[in-house]
């Protein structure tokens, strides 16, 4: 059993990506992972806070880091934005002593302290590196043979820091998909932007980007897209209709979280994977794989 402090993030806990949080919980015990939710965590601040006030934004993220430090475990989040934001705060504190002393002052005012020892990790990376594909493959009872998938990394899993995968041509999600028995389709835009939070203030700009993504995935022959980011899922799933209307296209591509895909291959009940929360229904595409199968123990 591997233990982690769990940081679901706002959207995966009870927001637009609630299916991500639910499917994460559903697969973790099957993979030998125990997630202990960080008590009373706050929003990481994401890009909007960082674009509004530097000191405040680092303080907000530092509260989570300070709380996580007390647990002594790695902090794991399924959200790419939380992953980047918490890591950014940590590296700013290490790089800029003046900023650190101000943040320490603010934390102390709230009765907190951060020494700088937390390791912030993405759930995907933790599963990929700590659990490993070999182990996952050994647990597959329902190989996704013939399912053609476009692996969508989005932006903030592999960037800005060169981390566990090649930032220019990431491969880890590709390998996971193959290990579950599914097929990869060529998807040159696999690490490109979905528009992120600009979908609200700059709708047309984001729709252009989503259109490009859908075009790239569909022209490769994908039956669905698999992602590691809650915002990517929401943008490409919930706004697909709008893209179809704007560009007179007929895309009907379900967007799955990688946790849902693993869950399916492990034979976990679709209901537990919250597949019904997808707006573009994945039922038709996944029909051959959703028959009940007992997970290996």
């Amino acid at each position, binding site marked *: 059993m591997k233990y982690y402090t769990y940081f679901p993030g706002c959207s995966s806990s009870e927001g637009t990506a609630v299916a991500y949080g639910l499917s994460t919980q559903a697969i973790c015990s099957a993979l030998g992972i125990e997630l202990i939710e960080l008590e009373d965590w706050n929003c990481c601040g994401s890009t909007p806070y960082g674009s509004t006030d530097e000191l405040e934004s680092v303080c907000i993220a530092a509260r989570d880091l300070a709380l996580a430090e007390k647990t002594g475990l790695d902090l794991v989040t399924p959200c790419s934005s939380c992953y980047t934001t918490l890591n950014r705060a940590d590296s700013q504190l290490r790089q800029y002593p003046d900023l650190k002393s101000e943040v320490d002052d603010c934390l102390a005012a709230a009765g907190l302290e951060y020494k700088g020892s937390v390791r912030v990790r993405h759930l995907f990376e933790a599963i990929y590196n700590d659990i490993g594909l070999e182990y996952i493959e050994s647990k597959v009872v329902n190989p996704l043979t013939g399912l053609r998938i476009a692996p969508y990394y989005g932006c903030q899993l592999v960037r800005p820091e060169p981390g566990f995968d090649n930032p220019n041509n990431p491969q880890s999600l590709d390998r996971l998909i193959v290990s579950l028995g599914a097929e990869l389709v060529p998807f040159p835009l696999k690490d490109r932007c979905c528009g992120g939070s600009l979908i609200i203030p700059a709708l047309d700009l984001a729709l252009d980007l989503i259109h490009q993504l859908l075009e790239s995935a569909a022209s490769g022959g994908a039956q669905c897209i698999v992602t590691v980011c809650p915002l990517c899922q929401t943008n490409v799933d919930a706004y697909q209709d709008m893209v179809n209307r704007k560009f007179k296209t007929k895309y009907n591509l379900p967007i799955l979280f990688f946790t849902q895909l693993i869950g399916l291959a492990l034979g976990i009940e679709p209901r537990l994977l919250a597949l019904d*929360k997808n707006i573009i229904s994945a039922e038709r595409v996944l029909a051959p794989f959703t028959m009940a199968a007992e997970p290996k123990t």
Partner: protein
Amino acid sequence: MKTKAYFMVKLETTGGDGHTDAVRELEAMPEVEAVEPVSGEYDLVVVAAVDAPIKIALLAKKIKVKDWVKNLQVLKLEPAAPNPFLDEVCSIPGGECINWCVQCGMCSASCPNVNKMDYSPRKIIALVRAGKRYDVLTSNSMWVCASCYLCTARCPKDVKITELMHTLERLALSHGLQNGGATAALYRAFVDSIKCNGRVHELGMMMKFFLKTNPLAALKILPVGLKLLSHGRMSIKPKKIKGTEQVKTMVKRAQALGGTK
């Protein structure tokens, strides 16, 4: 007083690896701003900036002792024009890397939203370095940055362009040169949600955003909102964390400290 110096350098060997190594070594010196090839008696012109004129001789000596230098001459000295805007950007954590930019344009070529920008990321950096505070801070460039970090990952000089864009967003607001339009309004609604509850309540944040900007625009994305709602992907009530007071205390203290912009 900052002083700019131009050195003419003749190399022991021209062309090939020796030449490249010399340029690299020169560029790595913190005082050196640019190294350019020239034709004629000398091979390179080196532009450097130092804090005081007296340091020019020291720098000249430092370059002269390199074994690849055949001859060195100080071409001219001039007081560097004050550039308070560049100084301000450099004083913000992460902003200092703007000096490393070689204007290759990789950031502009990588940016998915460059076609929506008044100035491309490369131009933004050039304008900051030219001290064009007004042009930069009234432009829309930073507000259409989606934080995809493609520019940052690809930059050969490790300039943190995405960070720079966020810095410029904060400066544009704090200088009062623009209100940042819809993007800044969304960011404010997002931050307010955190300050109020400790977490972001998506529905509340979006309602606040549309009320503050253009309530009619909400009609356009209403179908999306309804679909999310009917699929159980929008919580109606915000969740308040116990540590909301802690968050408020920290924000208050940060504001009292004046904040790093």
